[in-house]
């Protein structure tokens, strides 16, 4: 190699006219053979370095780059795929916001009057609106109410006119309203179709007119963590009603009826005045989200908002804490309307310290059907793991999963041990959601497991409740429950909460909803803390003859949560007998009728609350095969007797004097969303409705083609390059 290299360098130096060049030229002239050989070598030498150092490197770079691009594209595809997969998850389906079924153009001013007597709150909400349009309008006004509110009053003030609402059968009420609307009279109607979803329609509001709507309802105070709570929802979710916007946009100048949205108004203030009268001694009163001024007045307290310009942009919550005793106690309130006596009995649990925790048999059932796929399943899994961690050493447990088939971890419940817990955690880890929702066999399996003597069986049922055969399932639970207790944990944004709550009611347990992954720990601890300490079991109440009482199935009394029992009695109670099991022993308590706090004549709140419970029970009866027509008649009857707004009755008020002249158009007549309608409004999320398969296909085909082309290209080039390599 050294020799050609020499010649090479000679060649390179050729351009510079050196002595050596001159000598070479001389040699060439003398020997033609040398010239030929040198030329050959020079050509080879010149060719090789170029092909080795430039051309081949370029080819390789080019290939590397393409390869990298292709890999990049593939990664992109992968990202898109996961993106779609994730986009699918956020709980979509139907989102029911029970308190926020509710949207309204916010009121200018909100005035709340709250009267709490014992366990019943009478709430009157007054809201003022202004029609800022230039036309006569029909307004739709939806408002949020707390759970189980019994609506019974409506008063509208338009200008100087005051209209009092009256309860009518729904169809009649609607006819009355429509007739008044078309005749140009100011009229209003409040309708309900689902629980806690109400809608008010107001016809013939003049331009610039101020409307004042007052709605009154009764509400049971709730109790948890040793305090009473009253929460009034006041925040509203924007909504979309199909058709409405298009109409506003496209119709030529069709007027848009509106009540002024809060954002645009100068004032949208909240005023609140509350009175609180309680028989029990209170240790604290607290308002969670607002600053309040609390004063003692008479035999109770008054509560006012401190800030007179408080905005109505967050819920109002009031809580107060009574002093507790070491044994279960009962308090009785009665109301006599001349015909019957209505009684409200509250059973308060004792302090948690005075309850002896007893070992239990905990059976967890998890729904792994297709509808649980995604975040629902992971929430359910973490709820289960949380439950595993909360088991006590003496407890027994078992795990079941079901989709199209049921699978149980242990043949019979096993004691809590390191080994059994490990098995359970593995079982939970491996769960994945697929298949149908065959709930009945799973419930059956859980309720029929071999019993463990002396242990109370608690079935914890984790599901989204997406089933079609609700009534059969409820009947099954009622039939097969025996001495077990059933607790339901609803998972996801839109569980079938009615079904879950009823299952728990029939199962004499309780219901909890986990809507968010962050809520798992909090809600599960709350559930666990409660069911760990059953204070009073197998409660029985002797109201006397002819009593009609609710709830019909009396649940257990747990630490930190009192029970309310409402009854209608023929005569004033002399003695109400209570029995049950407290800390493993028989427990008895007699409540003397003379000790009852009786409501003032005319204060018929108890009667209405009782009626509300009766209506709820009648509605539930439908699920157990009650005749729909008969039930409707019964509900209507009760509602008219007690003056309650229900699915079949509405509140309607009409001003007898027509105000709008016939030649003036009522603005809303063409607006489709204002069809004479009820109020079964729900808010739904939007599903993710694109697969992106075309983009994925095109992209991956492109990558495939390029890669294949490159493979073919390199294979066709290989035979040419290989011999060349071998030659050197």
């Amino acid at each position, binding site marked *: 190699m050294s020799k050609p290299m020499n010649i090479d360098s000679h060649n390179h130096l050729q351009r510079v006219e050196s002595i050596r060049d001159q000598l070479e030229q001389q040699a060439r002239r003398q020997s033609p053979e040398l010239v030929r050989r040198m030329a050959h070598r020079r050509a080879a030498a010149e060719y090789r370095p170029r092909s080795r150092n430039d051309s081949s490197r370029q080819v390789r770079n080019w290939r590397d780059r393409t390869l990298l691009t*292709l*890999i990049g594209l*593939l990664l992109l*595809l992968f990202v*898109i*795929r996961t*993106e*779609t997969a994730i*986009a699918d998850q956020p709980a979509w*389906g*139907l989102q029911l916001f029970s308190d926020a079924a509710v*949207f309204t153009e916010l009121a200018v001013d909100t005035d709340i009057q709250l009267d709490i007597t014992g366990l019943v709150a009478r709430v009157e909400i007054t809201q003022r609106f202004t029609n800022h349009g230039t036309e006569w309008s029909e307004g739709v006004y939806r408002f949020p109410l707390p759970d189980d509110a019994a609506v019974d009053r409506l008063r509208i003030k338009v200008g100087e006119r005051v209209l009092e609402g009256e309860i009518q059968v729904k169809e009649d009420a609607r006819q009355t309203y429509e007739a008044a609307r078309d005749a140009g009279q100011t009229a209003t109607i409040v309708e309900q*179709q689902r629980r806690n979803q109400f809608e008010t329609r107001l016809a013939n509001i003049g331009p610039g007119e101020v409307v004042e709507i007052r709605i009154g309802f009764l509400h049971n105070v709730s109790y948890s963590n040793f305090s009473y709570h009253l929460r009034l929802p006041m925040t509203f*979710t*924007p*909504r*979309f009603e*199909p*058709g409405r916007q*298009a109409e506003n946009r496209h119709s030529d100048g069709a007027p848009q009826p509106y009540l002024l949205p809060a954002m645009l108004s100068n004032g949208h203030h909240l005023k609140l005045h509350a009175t609180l009268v309680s028989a029990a001694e209170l240790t604290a009163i607290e308002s969670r989200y607002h600053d309040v001024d609390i004063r003692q007045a008479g035999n109770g307290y008054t509560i006012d908002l401190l800030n007179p310009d408080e905005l109505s942009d967050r819920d109002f919550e009031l809580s107060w804490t009574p002093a507790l005793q070491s044994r279960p106690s009962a308090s009785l309130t009665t109301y006599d309307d001349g015909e019957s006596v209505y009684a409200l009995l509250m059973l308060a649990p004792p302090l948690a310290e005075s309850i002896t925790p007893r070992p239990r048999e905990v059976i967890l059932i998890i729904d792994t059907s*297709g*509808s649980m*796929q995604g975040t629902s399943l992971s929430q359910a899994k973490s709820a289960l793991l949380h439950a595993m961690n909360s088991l006590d050493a003496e407890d027994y447990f078992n795990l079941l999963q079901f*989709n199209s088939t049921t699978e149980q971890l242990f043949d019979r419940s096993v004691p809590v041990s390191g080994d059994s817990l490990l098995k359970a955690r593995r079982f939970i880890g491996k769960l994945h959601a697929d298949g*149908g*929702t065959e709930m009945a066999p799973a419930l059956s399996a859980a309720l029929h497991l071999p019993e463990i003597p002396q242990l109370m069986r608690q079935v914890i049922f984790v599901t989204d409740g997406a089933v*079609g*055969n609700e009534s059969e399932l409820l009947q099954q639970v009622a039939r097969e429950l025996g001495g077990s207790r059933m607790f339901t944990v609803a998972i996801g944004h*839109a569980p*079938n909460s009615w079904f879950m709550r009823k299952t728990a009611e029939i199962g004499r347990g309780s219901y909890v909803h986990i809507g968010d992954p962050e809520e798992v720990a909090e809600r599960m601890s709350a559930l666990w803390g409660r069911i760990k300490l059953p204070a009073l079991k197998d409660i029985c109440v002797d109201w006397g003859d002819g009593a009609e009482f609710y709830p019909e199935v009396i649940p257990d009394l747990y630490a930190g949560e009192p029970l309310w029992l409402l009854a209608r009695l023929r005569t004033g109670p002399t003695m109400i007998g209570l029995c049950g099991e407290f800390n493993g022993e028989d427990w008895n308590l007699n409540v003397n009728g003379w000790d009852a706090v009786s409501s003032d004549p005319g204060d018929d709140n108890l009667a209405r609350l009782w009626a509300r419970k009766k209506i709820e029970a009648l509605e539930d009866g439908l699920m157990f095969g009650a005749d729909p027509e008969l039930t409707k008649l019964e509900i209507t009857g009760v509602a008219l007797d007690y003056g309650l707004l229900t699915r079949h009755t509405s509140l309607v008020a009409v001003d007898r004097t027509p105000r709008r002249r016939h030649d003036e158009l009522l603005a809303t007549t063409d607006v*489709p969303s204002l069809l004479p*309608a*009820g*109020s*079964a*409004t*729900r*808010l*739904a*999320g*939007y*599903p*993710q*409705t*694109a*697969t*992106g*398969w*075309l983009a*994925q*296909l095109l992209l*991956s*085909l492109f*990558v*495939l083609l390029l*890669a294949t082309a*490159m*493979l073919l290209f*390199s294979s066709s080039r*290989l035979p040419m390059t290989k011999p060349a390599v071998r030659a050197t």
Partner: protein
Amino acid sequence: MNLLHVLKRHWCLAAVAFTAAVFSFDALWIPVKAEIAQHLLERAWLRTLAGEPDAKPWPWADTRAVAILEVPRLGLREIVLEGSSGRNLAFGPTLVNTGRIEQSSDRVISGHRDTHFSFLKKLQTGDLLRLHTPRGTRDYRVRWQQAVDSRKQSLLIDDAVERLTLLTCYPFDAPFPGGPLRWVVTALPVS
């Protein structure tokens, strides 16, 4: 032997080609599955009509056929499933409402814009939509079509109103899924 050698030498390229092939089959499977499922569903629908309460299209299915949506002008017929989960949407348009279709009057049906509901872009105001449920047939006429932002507004379902709403993603030809916009077609019953 030659090909094998090439694959060995360029395993990286081969892997890329293979993955790309898998992805393209996967992509192609989506519309194919959508089509096949509709045929399987047809049988389930017949069983539903025959009175079977919970006619599942296949034994492990977590849904059932609840209605048939027809667009006479476009000659289209789609079987509507219950429950708008991502999984059900792969097989057909789905009913957003919870509960049974017979109990609802404000019906909302959603579908993928690039499979079952691709026809939505061809729909015109005034088009006839026909919905068959086990209870009978109802005709609707398209009255409004509009795009909404799903981040800003939720959908209001009001069972006091008789209405059929079709929902899909928008824009129709966006290459990638996951956008916030939705196309909403509102149809009112023909009386």
